[in-house]
């Protein structure tokens, strides 16, 4: 909300600078987002007396005036009705500048030289042509000649733009902000006399005895849906005429961010800005029938709103309707049919209380974020409707000469009450810590225009009954009063205190620590951690080519996604990681190794989806480019497998790799990672089809592991004594059928050899002299006996045993 500084100071004379005011208000929760100085770009416009007027020689619609500014005389051609002898007007002399850069020069108007122009409000405020029926500005008599327009009309001002939280609906008005400023500054609040009556539930806040929903001989108000509109106040003003507001009022509205329209509409807006209560004016003669309904829209109903748009309505929306149909979307925007226009003679003013939730719904659905809607969707003061309507009726009467009916109709099912809350200094001590005396609390309550009762001592605490007016809809219980004390005491006045160190802090579980270590391991292996979105599109998942029936292809959908690109929850980290690969390939990075830990989601029979924590890996290209020392390190299946093997080893896990994982992996270059009899992950090269789907080039290896499974099986280290005996190495080369898995060969060796510490494949060869259809594996066996030194005989016995076992179990032949 925008608060013009001079308007604010009309209600409380602050001795702060605007900057100080912003600081003080912000620190009290009335956050000022921005302070700007708003200036009208105007020069050379001065007061002038119309000394003489003569007809234009050729144009009957124009006249020629002789104007004096005290220091000069100017001949001006104009068609304005206000150009009458003896009137004081504003003259833009030749060389003047109007807003928007418009320059005023001497020019010929239908053959008569016009030295400048007499201006209307629209010209000096907006730099635009006069509006239909708009006359030139007429100044009160007695204004000195030649005075600059800025000296006469308040044009320039500071404007504070507030960013209010939803509980500060009491600050959605200049008066509300003025009250806060008054409390903070200790300066008295100066309310317009009419508004003095407001605040408390009672004759003004509630319905007056003389008010009746049925206006004598006029309209009857029907609250058809009192849950949506529990109060509707109407008032007739007869005999209005079309006119524009005084320039000062128009300027104020503009500073507050609203467009001046006409005196009647401006008055409703002005009062809304002043009091926070939105108002609407109907052309009473265009209303059909004599009943005003506040009811839900009917199915299929529509309304042409003031902005000229035809808008379909639904049954969740509240409308104001006459016998013919809707005349306004309640609290959002009025209808075109009953719009106030130049011909309007009688108006019906509306001042109502609309329920916040339906108003917000309607405003969002119709995409009409009007000032009224922005207020109604917060809970407003339930007592403000009568004062606001009287205030507006008074202003309209003043500007347009209309005559308000003395009575107003007031249909009301609300019974706003003054809230009585027991307040104890105990809550101050408990919640705030700082000692703030009961006397100081009482002072703050009084300045907020609450009514605190006498202070009573109860044990070590002091209590008082605090009565809060209904306008403070945000205050319901003692803790809310405590907040009022805290913010007016000033949050900056509380001392910081350190928590007692009595509690040891630290990680919640071993798994939490290990998952951090897992990340450290990956960093130490050259992996780059990435963070990708959990929201994907179905197409992202389809691109992975998951088989029909694969749970990863059927994600948890969002009910109302912002876009189809972010419409489902990820079932795997791989689409995100491959997108990272694409990103880096497209910016010509030669290669990378990426990993991410994060949650994936699956539909579940329970209310909430299943969440699982995964590690995802992806690598492509040159992980390290060739240097003068050594060749490049390529991202291959075996490189990725090495990382996974190392990771599992560091986590103390034993796992095996079974050939062949499903999509998106290459069927021949992929494996399932099995540990403890269950699949804990998959790794492999990306299937060429998926590579094509994703526009990836070269080769790319990827994989995932279940972090929960790994952490559950991870083992801490146990020490085994280091052998005092020498380790011995022996090599064996064995030829097997090409289809035999190296893993099976290794397994035979591991299960057969004695005192074996490790077996390592140091060569795989399938060219002559190795026979066609065979491959030769060169194995290095490292023996590490714990109790003796191995003799040649021991080793040769072992070798024979291994040879026999290889022949028997994998058809292996030793190559010499």
């Amino acid at each position: 909300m925008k608060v013009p500084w001079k308007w604010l100071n009309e209600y409380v004379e602050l001795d702060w600078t605007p900057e100080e005011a912003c600081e003080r208000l912000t620190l009290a929760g009335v956050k000022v987002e921005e302070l700007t100085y708003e200036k009208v770009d105007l020069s050379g416009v001065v007061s002038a007396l119309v000394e003489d007027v003569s007809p234009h020689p050729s144009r009957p619609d124009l006249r020629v005036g002789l104007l004096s500014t005290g220091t000069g005389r100017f001949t001006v051609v104009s068609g304005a009705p206000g150009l009458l002898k003896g009137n004081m007007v504003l003259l833009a002399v030749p060389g003047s500048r109007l807003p928007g850069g418009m320059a005023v020069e001497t020019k010929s108007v239908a053959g008569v030289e016009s030295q400048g122009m007499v201006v209307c409000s629209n010209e000096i405020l907006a730099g635009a042509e006069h509006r239909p029926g708009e006359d030139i500005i007429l100044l009160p008599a007695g204004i000195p000649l030649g005075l600059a327009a800025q000296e006469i009309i308040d044009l320039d001002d500071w404007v504070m733009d507030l960013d209010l939280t939803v509980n500060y609906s009491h600050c959605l008005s200049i008066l509300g902000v003025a009250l806060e400023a008054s409390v903070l500054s200790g300066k008295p609040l100066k309310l317009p006399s009419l508004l003095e009556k407001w605040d408390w539930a009672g004759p003004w806040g509630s319905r007056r005895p003389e008010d009746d929903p049925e206006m004598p001989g006029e309209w009857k108000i029907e609250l058809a849906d009192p849950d949506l509109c529990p109060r509707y106040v109407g008032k007739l003003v007869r005999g209005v005429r079309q006119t524009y507001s005084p320039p000062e009022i128009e300027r104020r509205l503009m500073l507050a961010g609203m467009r001046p329209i006409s005196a009647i509409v401006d008055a409703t807006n002005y009062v809304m800005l002043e009091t926070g209560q939105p108002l609407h004016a109907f052309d009473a003669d265009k209303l059909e029938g004599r009943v005003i309904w506040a009811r839900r829209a009917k199915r299929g109903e529509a309304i042409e709103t003031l902005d000229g748009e035809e808008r379909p309505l639904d049954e969740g929306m509240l409308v104001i309707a006459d016998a013919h149909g809707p005349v306004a979307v309640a609290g959002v925007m009025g209808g075109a049919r009953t719009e106030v226009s130049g011909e309007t003679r009688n108006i019906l003013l509306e001042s109502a209380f609309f329920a916040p939730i339906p108003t917000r719904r309607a405003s969002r659905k119709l995409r009409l974020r009007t000032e009224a809607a922005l207020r109604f969707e917060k809970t407003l003061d339930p007592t403000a409707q009568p004062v606001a309507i009287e205030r507006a009726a008074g202003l309209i009467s003043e500007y347009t000469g209309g005559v308000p009916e003395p009575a107003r109709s007031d249909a009301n099912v609300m019974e706003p009450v003054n809230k009585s809350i027991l307040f104890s200094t105990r809550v101050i001590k408990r919640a705030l810590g700082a000692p703030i005396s009961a006397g100081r609390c009482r002072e703050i309550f009084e300045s907020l225009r609450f009514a605190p009762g006498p202070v009573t001592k109860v044990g070590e605490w002091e209590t008082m009954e605090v009565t809060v007016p209904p306008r403070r809809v945000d205050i319901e219980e003692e803790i809310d009063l405590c907040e009022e004390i805290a913010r007016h005491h000033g949050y900056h006045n509380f001392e910081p205190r350190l928590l007692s160190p009595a509690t040891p802090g630290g990680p919640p579980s071993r798994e939490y620590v290990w998952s951090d270590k897992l990340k450290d391991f990956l960093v130490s292996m050259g992996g780059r951690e990435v963070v990708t979105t959990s929201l994907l599109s179905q197409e992202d998942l389809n691109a992975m080519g998951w088989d029909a029936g694969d749970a990863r292809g059927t994600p948890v959908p969002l009910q109302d996604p912002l876009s189809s690109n972010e419409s489902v929850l990820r079932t795997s980290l791989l689409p995100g990681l491959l997108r990272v690969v694409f990103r880096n390939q497209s910016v010509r990075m030669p290669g990378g190794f990426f990993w991410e830990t994060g949650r994936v989601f699956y539909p579940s029979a329970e209310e909430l989806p299943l969440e699982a924590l995964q590690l995802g890996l992806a690598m492509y290209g040159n992980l390290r480019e060739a240097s003068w020392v050594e060749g490049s390190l390529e991202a291959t299946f075996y490189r990725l497998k090495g990382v996974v093997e190392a990771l599992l080893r560091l986590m103390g896990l034993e796992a095996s790799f079974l050939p062949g994982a499903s999509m998106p992996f290459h069927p021949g270059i992929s494996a399932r990672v099995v540990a403890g009899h269950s699949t804990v992950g998959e790794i492999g090269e990306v299937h060429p089809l998926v590579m094509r789907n994703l526009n990836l080039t070269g080769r790319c290896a990827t994989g995932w592991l279940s972090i929960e499974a790994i952490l559950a099986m991870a083992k801490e280290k146990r020490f085994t004594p280091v052998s005092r005996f020498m380790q011995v190495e022996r090599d064996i080369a064995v030829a097997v059928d090409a289809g035999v898995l190296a893993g099976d060969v290794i397994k035979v060796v591991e299960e057969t050899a004695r005192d074996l510490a490790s077996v390592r494949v140091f060569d795989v060869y399938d060219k002559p002299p190795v026979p066609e259809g065979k491959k030769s594996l060169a194995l290095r066996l490292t023996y590490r006996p714990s109790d003796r030194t191995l003799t040649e005989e021991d080793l040769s016995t072992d070798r024979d045993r291994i040879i026999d076992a290889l022949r028997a179990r994998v058809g292996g032949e030793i190559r010499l």
Partner: protein
Amino acid sequence: MDYLGDISIAHAKGGRRGKAVIPSETMRDQIDDLQRRVSKEIEEAGTLAELDEVRIKYLGKKGELTNLLKAVGSLPKEERPEFGAKVNSLREAIETGLREKSGYLDRKALDEKVRREVADVTLPGNLPEIGSLHPITKALREIVQIFYGMGFTVYESREAETDEMNFVKLNLAPGHPARDAQDTLYLTDTTLLRTHTSPGQIRGMLEMEGRLPVRFIVPGRVYRRDPFDASHSPVFHQVEGLVIDRHITFEDLKGCFLEFARGFFGPDTQIRLRPSYFPFTEPSAEIDVSCTICRGRGCQVCSRTGWLELSGAGMVHPRVIRNGGYDPEEVTGFAFGFGLDRAAMLKWGIDDLRVLFENDLRFLTQFEGL
């Protein structure tokens, strides 16, 4: 260099003893001559091979000294001991001489080899692969450590939540206007993606089953129905903090957050609390930290205010305490929640939220190491 120096002394000593038997002049001359020659040849040997030739020439099976020793046997009996001793000590002297010279040559050859081995130390080293943590993880780790030090632990809560946990239990009934501030991504009518880490307050408290003190942070992913731009993302990260105990006040909140802000942004960081509104805290506060870029003097980043909005906070609302299974008449508490991504951006001067999620290597590599 005289490699046989000590032999000469032995010889002279022998002379001074002045024994009665005079050895044959021939023998004496031969010994002197051999001694002179071997000394010279050892000195002249320039390589280990040449030195070995000297050894064979004198000490080999048919070497000159070996022959000389044989010749001692042909001397008169009474002269044999003296000449025998002389020849033996000459032998020891030659061996010592050879060893020393060999040591010298060996060292010389090594020095020569070392002198020839020169690396261009300005050529790049053979770099191991270097990995990196994402800045969000780096920031979180620092944050977690600071809170460990203040007696906090970590509670990890779920990302898909019920409306009940995300809103209702936090005092945000259906239709509450504050729900608007958190445009929600719903999964079904009753389930959603958590819009803040605050439901972790309720789940964490319920798991504590009434034990005191409650002191944990809830880091994690949160979701909003926001389009992606420089400062918004439908997916981002928050860190929630919750303390419930007897005698917890607003002053504790202030002290705790100040400690965190100084630990994370630097010891001269200031904080500023402003009244704000969250349905789950009362009183509520917005916490600003002194601008990390201009240190509070005012710059573009902080809109010349010197302050950066970082966190929501407040005293836990009595209803929320009750929803967590605690008695608000017995305990009080404070809570706070801030954007982890924003904290990381402020710490490292990252000006666009999107780069955090693009994972461009040119970005990621900047977060190697410390």
